[in-house]
């Protein structure tokens, strides 16, 4: 699907800040509010804008730090449906945050979040490995998130500029 320049502009702004008010969004993209709202509605209907979300640094919240693991999964593709069928069986588990089909040494990259390492281990050994098509899994635990989805978690925020300059 082709988007117009105006639609692209709206998508890019909303991707950076999904909580922006329609008034500010309209002002920033140089459009009327009605036109902006119309574009948002259209993009939502087309599922170009899939969901409005936020980036949370859970590691800051006591008792909610959680554990994230990236699992490399090798599978046997099925005739007719390829990898889609097994991918679906995996992504339906709510603890699975993302599933990607990969090129290279393994087939699916699965990101899962659990409360503890035990949680993740249980999921891998009881749910994931036992699926018929799954040949092998390699689990990598994430130790620290520096940057996530384009956002640096601890940016150097201080403005080093002098307050007034020509």
């Amino acid at each position, binding site marked *: 699907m082709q988007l117009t320049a105006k639609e692209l502009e709206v998508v*890019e*702004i909303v991707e950076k800040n999904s909580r922006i008010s329609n008034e500010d969004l309209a002002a920033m993209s*140089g459009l009327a509010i009605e036109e902006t709202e119309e574009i948002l509605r259209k993009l939502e209907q087309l599922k170009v804008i899939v969901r409005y979300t936020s980036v949370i640094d859970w590691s800051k919240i006591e008792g909610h730090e959680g554990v994230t693991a990236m699992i490399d999964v090798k599978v046997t593709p099925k005739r007719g449906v390829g990898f889609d069928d097994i991918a679906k069986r995996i992504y339906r588990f709510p603890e699975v945050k993302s599933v990607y089909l990969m090129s290279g040494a393994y087939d699916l990259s699965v990101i899962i979040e659990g409360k503890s390492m035990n949680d993740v281990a249980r999921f891998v050994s009881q749910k994931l490995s036992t699926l018929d098509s799954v040949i092998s899994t390699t689990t990598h635990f994430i130790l620290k998130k520096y940057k996530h989805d384009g956002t640096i978690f601890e940016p150097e925020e201080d403005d080093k*500029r002098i307050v*007034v*300059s*020509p």
Partner: protein
Amino acid sequence: MKTTKSYLSRTVEELKPSGIRRFFDLASGMEGVISLGVGEPDFVTPWSVREAAILSLEQGYTSYTANAGLLELRQEIASYLINSFQVAYKPESEIIVTVGASQAIDIALRSILDPGDEVIIVEPCFVSYSPLVVLAGGKPVHVQAAKDNGFKISGDTLKSAITDKTKAIMICSPNNPTGTLLEEDDLREIAAIAKEHDLLVLSDEIYAELAYDGAYTSMAAIEGMKERTILVSGFSKGFAMTGWRLGFVCAPQYIAEAMLKVHQYGMMCAPTMAQYAGLEALRSGSSDVEEMRKSYRRRRNYMVSSFNEMGLDCHLPGGAFYVFPSIQATGLTSEQFAEQLLMEEKVAVVPGNVFGESGEGYIRCSYATSMEQLQEAVRRIRSFLEKNTK
């Protein structure tokens, strides 16, 4: 024994200190100020550029370069100018790498002016133009851009300032402080006058990368103008590299040779690590620049729409990162407005008269500040207006 004062050059003594200084002093001492008074990007130099400079230091590139700058860098500048603006300069003989665009303007003026020569300066303009003309021994002649035409200069006004002493016209597009972009037609009009009266044009194009509504036209790209244009530009604004002090100047060979003399005796060469950083900026920085440009454009739209909504008339500037709204509706002078706004609401702006008399009645607001800060600044200015408008 002479008095201390009498040791000073009379020319320097008579220079007025920049009006920006006072606001700097006022604002620096305060806590919680949102500054729209900053004339530089809020972005830090792209990491790939910083990394290249670090590497150059690690590899020991710490000696002088050629006076005109690294040939490699001049070659990159030449291809950048031809690709982006369709102007062709020879890296060996027509390009000099300078310490910021400011030094480029300085050596250009010192290379072309004899005592008494006049330079026409279009106001409102950057604060250094007039003092640099004076320091070069010339005489600045100020003409006012047309407020009712988005701060573009009218041909008639320009012509009326020309005398037999006039040597050059100085322009800046996109403009600091008005943000005004001169379109091809505007440039043609100025070019025709320059040709008719056999004048040089000193074209400050430091904001060329920050033009928001279509392609940028350089004065040197107008036919017949390359031979009478001194093109000044640099890395500070577009590539967010103000602190590196890296600019360049392009001119016909005979002027470039003259400028190189001034540059070589006064400066030797631009800092070497900054030159390596500039090389990387031109080779890989275009996507970073594009991201910054998009971000500025959105903030410009937001600021113009906010000011107009508040009842402060504001034209849509084509470039740079300044809006220049009129504050005449408040009945205050530029200085009063800026000072009271700072005291009452802690928002720093620069009064327009700092940039020349024609800037009176306006304020310069830089939107090189995060959207969140701009939104808060707009809230504060709105509250200021509610309290101060009868």
